[in-house]
Every structure is written in C-alpha cells, then in structure tokens.
C-alpha cells in the first residue's frame, strides 16, 4: 500500500508538471484542446494526491506500522480521532495535507467561470502548478510519508501528549488549509502582472477567495492561542514566538490588502500596494514555514522542528518566489501608475489608507523583531534576542490606533463632503458611551491612564459601529415602514458583506478588550501548600485537600484536590493535574481553569511531595481572557455572514452605502 501511495504522488507530480507547461504554452487561450488537456492534468493530480491521502489515512486508522509515518506518530493506545489527526500532525503528512488542498483549490479555480478572469486563468493556474510541483517534489524525495519499516514494529512511538488536544484537531488543519488557500490570490496577482491585465479584474475576482483564506488564518491563530492557553500551563495565550508570528504576519498583510483593494476598486489607486501585499502574504507563509523548521531562531522559539534538511528547500523556494515576484512588479511599474483622483483628507479612503499603513507597519515590526536574533548574529556575530515585551509595547499601541481609526472610519462615507457639524453629531453618542464606560471603570478603581485610554478607544469604536448600524436600520424603518427587527433582518440579508464586516470589526474590538484586560491585570502567585492550607489571590481562597493518583494503561495521573471559595461563597472544586506517559516518562500539565465573564482562575500543579502532603501550586488570575474566545466566535460569525454564498448580484459588487443610507 505504501508503494501505491508513493507512486500516486510521483504520477501526480508528473501530471502537475504537464499541466504547468500546458498552461504556459496555452496562456493566450488560442488552443482549446491544449487548455482542456491541461485541465485534465489538474483533475488527474487531484485524484492521485487524494488517493495517497486516503492510503495514509487508512494506514493511520488501521495501525499499519509498516508505514514509518504511522509508527512515528501513533501507537495502539491512541484514539481514532487523534490517529486521523496524525495525518497533519507529522511533518511529511502536513506537507501532503497542504499539497492536497492546493490541488483541490487549483481544480476549483479551473472550474470557476467568470468572464472577467478568463484571460487571467491560464497564467494563474500555471503559477498554482509551480507551487504544487514544489510541494509534490518534496513529498516524493526528502519528505515522503510513505517510507516503510522492516521488520514491522509491534507498536508505534505514539503522539506527543501536548498534541492530544482539540486544538490539534482544529488549529493545525485550519491553518494549513488557509496557507493553501493563499496560493490562489497570489497566483492571480502574478497572473495579472504576467498578462499585463492590471485593471481591477484580478482584484475583484479574488476578493472572496482572499476573505476566505484570511478568515481561516484568523480562526487558526485564535485556535492556536486557545490551545496554548489551555494546555501549556503558563497562563498566556500569545508569546510572540516565531511560529506564532509566522501565522500573524500574513494575516496582517492580508488585512491591509482587504482594505486597500476596496480603495483601488473605487478610485483606481494603490495598485502597486495591493500586489505587494498579496505577494508578501504568500511569501511570508513560505518564509514562516522555513523559520519554523530551520532552527535559525532556536534561541527564541520553544518549537523545535526536528526535520533539518527540509529548510534549504523552503529557503530556496522563498528566495525565488520573493525575488521573482518583486522583480516582476518592478518590471511592470509603468503599467501600475495610479489614476490619481482627488482624495479628501477626511474620507473613508484616507482612513483606509491609514489603517493599511498601520497594519503593514505592525507586520514589518513583527517581522524585524522575529528575525532580529538571526540578523544580529549575521552582522555582529553575537546573537541578541528581543523579549516579548518589545512586541507588546510597539504592536500594542499600533493596534489600539487601528481600533480608534475603525471607529472614526465607520462614520465617514466614501469620498463624500461632510461638514464638521454633522461629523460631530455622528461622533457624539459613541463618545458619550465611551466616557460613561471609563467613568464606570474609574469608579470601579481603575486608575492606570493607559488602560483608561485603551478602554475609551474600545468603547468609542464599539458604540460607533453599533450606532451606525442602528442609524441604517432606522433609515430603513422610516423609509419602508418596517419594524426595527424586520428592517435589521432585511438589511443584513440584503448586504451581507457590509454587515459581516461590521460584525468582524466588532469582534476585533471585543478581542482587544480581552487582550488589554489580561495584559494589564494578570497576576499570579506560587505557594507551597500542606494539606488543609489555603492561599488567597484576588478574592479567591483556594484550599488544598490532598493529591489523588490514578493509573490508566498508559498514563499516570496526579491531581491536586482544591476547594475554591470567593469570600464566603463556595464556588467548586478544581483539580489541576500532571499526566505522565508511562512508556517514555514524558509529562504534561493539565491546568484547571475556572472561567467567568470577568476573570479566569487558572491553577497549575507544579510539583508534589512523594507522600502527597505538600504541593507547589501556581495560581493565576487572568482577567477577561474569555472575551478573546467570545470575540473569536463572533469573528467566525461575521466571516460566515459575509462569505455565505448567495445572490451574486447583491453580494460582491454592491456598494456598502447603497443600501439604507440613501435617505441620510
């Protein structure tokens, strides 16, 4: 079976190479037969890659330890779901999964019929095939999931306990699918450059693709944060680790693109910027994969990827795609002149421009900070490491300004003359709401001016969006004599991208609220407790009642029994655990978390004495963390509303202010 999988990948590689050349030769679209056979090559490649994915999945499900891959990442104790998750849990498997989705998306792109992009399609598919050929080449040579073991081992090595977590089932595949999906916008950007069709066609066509990839990557990042928070036992959710940054930077550049592209669509400016953002997004994904796997940043990353040998290929591919696409952009610079029209200083264009600059700027800061150790080693010989505080202090304020700009932007229409008086009227209620919020916070005892400023900004923007939304409902309510509820519903259905956008922006503010609270008011305390002793932190009293032990066939579990009171009120029992794998002695902390809307109580069992009478316990108070996850759900909701397939005439081309605002 393993051999069939391997041969299928080789044939898929051959088919992809064929399609690549067929699309290059047939790029003018003058030879329908060639175009058809190129397309058949895509289908064949998808079928063959799917076959190898199926073979590997069956091997994982049936404990076929003849596959070295299966023996390396699973064992007889592993449950079905996690055996399947090993498909993307190992290095070769993750590349196969990635290549599979590139292939799937290439077929979807080939089947995609829209007049505007017919001329771009052969170029774009050729570019996608170049990427696919790169991945398949790795999969049949240096990183094959189909090497065999002889003699066949009785049991496998098993999956790392940290990976046996729902995060593994969701975060890893969603992130990989997002990475694969970003191939399509990149391919169309390069197609536009190659074919010199640099109008708005490529931009408008790929918007939904890009939003989809962007949404998946955003969800992947939030899930990664949640995974880190619930299992790693350090109470944090984001450490500015290079591997995390590698997921954040492409997301920031794409966010900048999503805003600049709206300006280009209307005003025909910022063409170079938009191409640049898409090019950087794709290349940073490849670069991120390189740094995650190469060990050049081992000094700052806790993730060590044990597969040296793959990184030179990713570095080479990165250099080729980056230099190639930048050179192409430079070569076409004369075709990319902006058709400048006058832009008012106070307009949605200018606020979008500012947002895009801030996003791109923060992404650059993250990039420089991430590779700083490697740069200093290359230049000065001595490696200098930047701590996470740097990112907090630089990127934090930039993000806060972005939140503020969102609140201002939503009240300003596209290029419309607004007199100062009506502007003040629009900002009045959001400002009042924000002032009320910080007044309440002040009374509640919060005195740090940074926090008050930050929450003022969040409150302003949150209510600015809600207020604007309400105005739009009110206008419709008056114009059509519909009830408010019906008007709300009709508006939402009538212009889902617009209102999906509102919801996504609200979710960003909600996430910001959680980040600010947990960054400024996190507190923790480590205590040595004997049976019956208590520790108090931020109003909670925790009493230690002893350690219980449990042994399953493959695990040894120690759990500290803790009773929690808030003042005199009994809240419940918590049992932070330490789990040890009997086979290899590997241990994993399983913190106990008591969540509320205001704060999480986060308890970690650090150590226990042999008689179980004494423990070392870390108790953390993590305010507002739950709002990150709530914001994450709202982010998904907004994205689904914006993207849900529906009436084409309504969805992608509708101007946001065309509905509801006419009467304003």
């Amino acid at each position, binding site marked *: 079976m393993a051999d069939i999988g391997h041969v299928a990948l080789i044939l898929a590689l051959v088919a992809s190479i064929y399609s690549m050349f067929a699309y290059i030769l047939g790029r003018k679209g003058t030879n329908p037969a060639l175009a058809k056979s190129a397309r058949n090559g895509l289908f064949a490649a998808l079928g063959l890659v799917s076959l190898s994915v199926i073979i590997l999945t069956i091997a994982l499900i049936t404990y076929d330890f003849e596959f070295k891959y299966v023996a390396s990442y699973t064992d007889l104790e592993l449950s079905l779901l996690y055996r399947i998750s090993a498909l993307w*849990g190992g290095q070769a498997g993750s590349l196969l999964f990635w290549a599979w989705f590139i292939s799937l998306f290439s077929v979807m792109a080939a089947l995609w019929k829209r007049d505007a992009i017919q001329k771009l399609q052969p170029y774009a598919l050729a570019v996608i095939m170049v990427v696919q050929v790169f991945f398949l080449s790795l999969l049949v040579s240096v990183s094959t999931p189909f090497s065999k*073991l002889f003699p066949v081992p009785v049991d496998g090595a098993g999956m*790392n306990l940290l990976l046996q977590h729902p995060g593994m089932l969701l975060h890893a595949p969603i992130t990989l699918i997002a990475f694969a999906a970003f191939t399509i916008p990149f391919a169309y950007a390069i197609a536009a450059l190659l074919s010199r069709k640099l109008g708005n066609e490529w931009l408008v066509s790929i918007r939904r693709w890009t939003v989809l990839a962007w949404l998946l990557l955003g969800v992947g990042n939030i899930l990664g944060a949640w995974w880190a928070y619930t299992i790693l036992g350090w109470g944090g959710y984001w450490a500015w680790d290079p591997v995390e940054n590698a997921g954040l930077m492409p997301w920031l550049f794409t966010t900048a693109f999503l805003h600049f592209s709206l300006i280009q669509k209307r005003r025909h400016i910022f063409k170079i910027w938009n191409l640049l953002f898409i090019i950087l997004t794709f290349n940073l994904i490849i670069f991120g994969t390189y740094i995650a796997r190469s060990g050049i940043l081992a000094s700052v990353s806790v993730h060590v990827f*044990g597969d040296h040998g793959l990184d030179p290929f990713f570095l080479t591919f990165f250099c080729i795609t980056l230099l190639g696409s930048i050179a192409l952009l430079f070569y076409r610079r004369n075709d990319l002149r902006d058709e400048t029209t006058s832009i008012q200083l106070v307009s949605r264009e200018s606020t979008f421009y500012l947002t895009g*600059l801030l996003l791109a*700027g923060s992404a650059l800061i993250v990039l420089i900070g991430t590779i700083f150790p490697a740069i200093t080693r290359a230049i000065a010989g001595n*490696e*200098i490491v930047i701590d996470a505080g740097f990112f907090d202090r630089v990127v934090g304020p930039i993000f806060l300004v972005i939140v503020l700009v969102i609140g201002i932007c939503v009240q300003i229409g596209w290029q419309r003359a607004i007199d100062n008086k009506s502007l003040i009227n629009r900002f009045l209620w959001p400002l009042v709401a924000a002032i009320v919020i910080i007044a309440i916070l002040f009374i509640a005892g919060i005195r740090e001016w940074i926090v008050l400023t930050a929450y003022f900004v969040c409150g302003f923007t949150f209510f600015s969006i809600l207020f604007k939304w309400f105005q739009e409902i009110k206008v419709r309510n008056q114009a059509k004599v519909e009830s408010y509820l019906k008007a709300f519903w009709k508006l939402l259905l009538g212009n889902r991208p617009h209102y999906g956008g509102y919801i996504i922006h609200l979710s960003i503010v909600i996430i910001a609220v959680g980040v600010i609270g947990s960054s400024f008011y996190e507190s923790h305390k480590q205590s040595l407790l004997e049976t019956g002793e208590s520790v108090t932190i931020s109003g909670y009293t925790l009493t230690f009642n002893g350690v219980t032990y449990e042994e399953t066939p493959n695990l040894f579990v120690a759990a500290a029994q803790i009773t929690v009171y808030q003042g005199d009120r009994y809240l419940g029992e918590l049992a932070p655990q330490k789990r040890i794998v009997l086979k290899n002695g590997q241990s994993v902390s399983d913190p106990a978390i008591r969540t509320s809307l205001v704060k999480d109580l986060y308890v970690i069992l650090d*150590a226990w004495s042999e008689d179980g009478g004494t423990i070392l316990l870390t108790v953390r108070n993590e305010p507002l963390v739950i709002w990150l996850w709530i914001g994450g759900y709202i982010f998904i909701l907004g994205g689904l509303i914006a993207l849900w397939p529906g009436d084409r005439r309504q969805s992608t081309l509708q101007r946001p202010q065309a509905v509801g605002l006419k009467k304003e």
Partner: protein
Amino acid sequence: MKGKGNKFLIGGIIVFLAIGSLAFASLQNSTSFFLTVSELKQQESSLYGKPIKVNGEVVPGSIEDNIGERTLLFTITEGGQSLSVVFYRGTVPDNFEAGREVIVDGKLNTDGIFEAHTIMAQCPSKYDPELLESGQEG
C-alpha cells in the same frame, strides 16, 4: 493632481517614522544576549548582572529539586563547559529533564551562579517524533 499624491506620501512617511521611532525607543530595554555556555564562560566577567539567555544541555544527575525551599538547582553544559543554575521556582516546563536542551533566561551572579527567572525547554514539537525503539528503515 500631483499635490494629492504627495499628501498621501507624506502621510505615509509620517506614519512609518512614528512606528519606527516607537520601535527604536522600545528596543533599548528589551534585548538580551543569547549565548551558549562556552561563550558565556569566555566573557564571564563582562556579563555580571546583565540580562542573558543561555543555551545548554541539562547534566544528568545534576537536578536538585527542593520543593520546600522552592528552588531548583541544576547544571547545564555545552562545549565542554558547565554552568550552575539556580531557579527560584516558578513553573518548570513539562519537558524539563536531564539531557534536554534548555534555554535559561536570567542573569549571571558574581559568584558564577546563573540566576534564572525563566526556563525554556525546547518543545518536542509535532514534527519531532520520539525515537523509535524497534524497527529499522527498510
């Protein structure tokens, strides 16, 4: 027409200068040297009290976990040199163990003992399978 384009350009430059200066100002007190044990030993006297991260392997048998005093003592080694580390217990990473590559974050005291406030043990990542006990590649 041209003036409008410039306005955008100037605005952009101002934004980037602002971000750049914020970054530069923040850089001053958020860096530390990253050294291996042998590199640290070479320039020991010039490093006392400075923020340093040191990379080395935990010497088997050197770990002395004193829960009662909340200290963890151990020695790390690299390039034939070794360094004694004292860690006033915070949370020790799960995968901290003898023979593991670790990065200790803290400062070097004048008595030559490294006082760590954080231990990072390199995560056995999803791409780093534990060695197979049985079977050979065929």
